[in-house]
């Protein structure tokens, strides 16, 4: 099956870049590895028939959040990029993570999922748009308010204080 091959290819990219995000010591390398993970997840969205969401992922995450993160890394790394990136308590963190992972995989593999076989993927833009202006119109408007508040808040927080 070609779809399965595509899935494992994308999953390999995603997980390998995720490991890069977690285990590289240089923050710039972590940010670049995060790009691989985001691209892999965008590919997964397209594989799952969510074409609009894949494009949104590319625009907002890769084009916006990642660039913002890189800006912040550049602005805060005047001393040394490598400094302060060493792990603290790797062993307890690994134990916690392993426990969570085994619990999750056990739940995933033992539960009986009510899954219907998906049909052929169809365009999603029309449905998403009419849902946003139909049954989801209130969350949609609140989301615009949240974005406005976040915008103002980010400006207020990062502005240099004028002592006076």
């Amino acid at each position: 099956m070609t779809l399965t091959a595509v899935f494992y290819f994308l999953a390999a990219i995603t997980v390998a870049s995720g490991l890069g995000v977690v285990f590289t010591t240089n923050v710039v390398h972590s940010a670049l590895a995060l790009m691989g993970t985001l691209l892999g997840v965008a590919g997964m969205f397209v594989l799952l028939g969510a074409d609009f969401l894949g494009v949104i992922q590319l625009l907002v995450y890769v084009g916006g959040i990642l660039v913002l993160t890189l800006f912040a890394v550049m602005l805060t790394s005047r001393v040394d990029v490598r400094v302060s990136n060493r792990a603290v308590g790797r062993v307890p963190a690994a134990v916690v993570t392993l426990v969570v992972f085994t619990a999750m995989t056990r739940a995933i593999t033992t539960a009986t999922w009510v899954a219907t076989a998906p049909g052929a993927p169809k365009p999603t833009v029309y449905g998403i748009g009419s849902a946003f202006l139909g049954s989801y119109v209130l969350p949609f408007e609140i989301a615009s308010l949240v974005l406005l508040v976040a915008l103002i808040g980010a400006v207020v927080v990062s502005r240099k204080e004028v002592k006076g």
Partner: protein
Amino acid sequence: MDALSLQHFLVLGAILFCLGLFCVLTRRNAIGILMGIELVLNSANLNYVAFARYNGGAYDGQIFAIFVIMLAAAEAAIGLAIVLGIYQGFETIDVEATDRLRG
């Protein structure tokens, strides 16, 4: 259809979630912690879209994922602004070293 089932995507989401969790737990760099949070949010989005796909193709899961992406953008903007503020006050973004509340 075939070998590609819902569980494939759920397990991938679990792997991404655990990578993000490990990142948040071990990093001392505040920006690294924010990147771990992005990983966790992406795993949640993957689960949303997978559930939407394997439940008759309704749009609800995708719309939830869009809201999560929107909130992640707001969170990244605010979080990075706070990190820059911390850097102005402390000259570092090591979360172990920023333990004073008074500026």
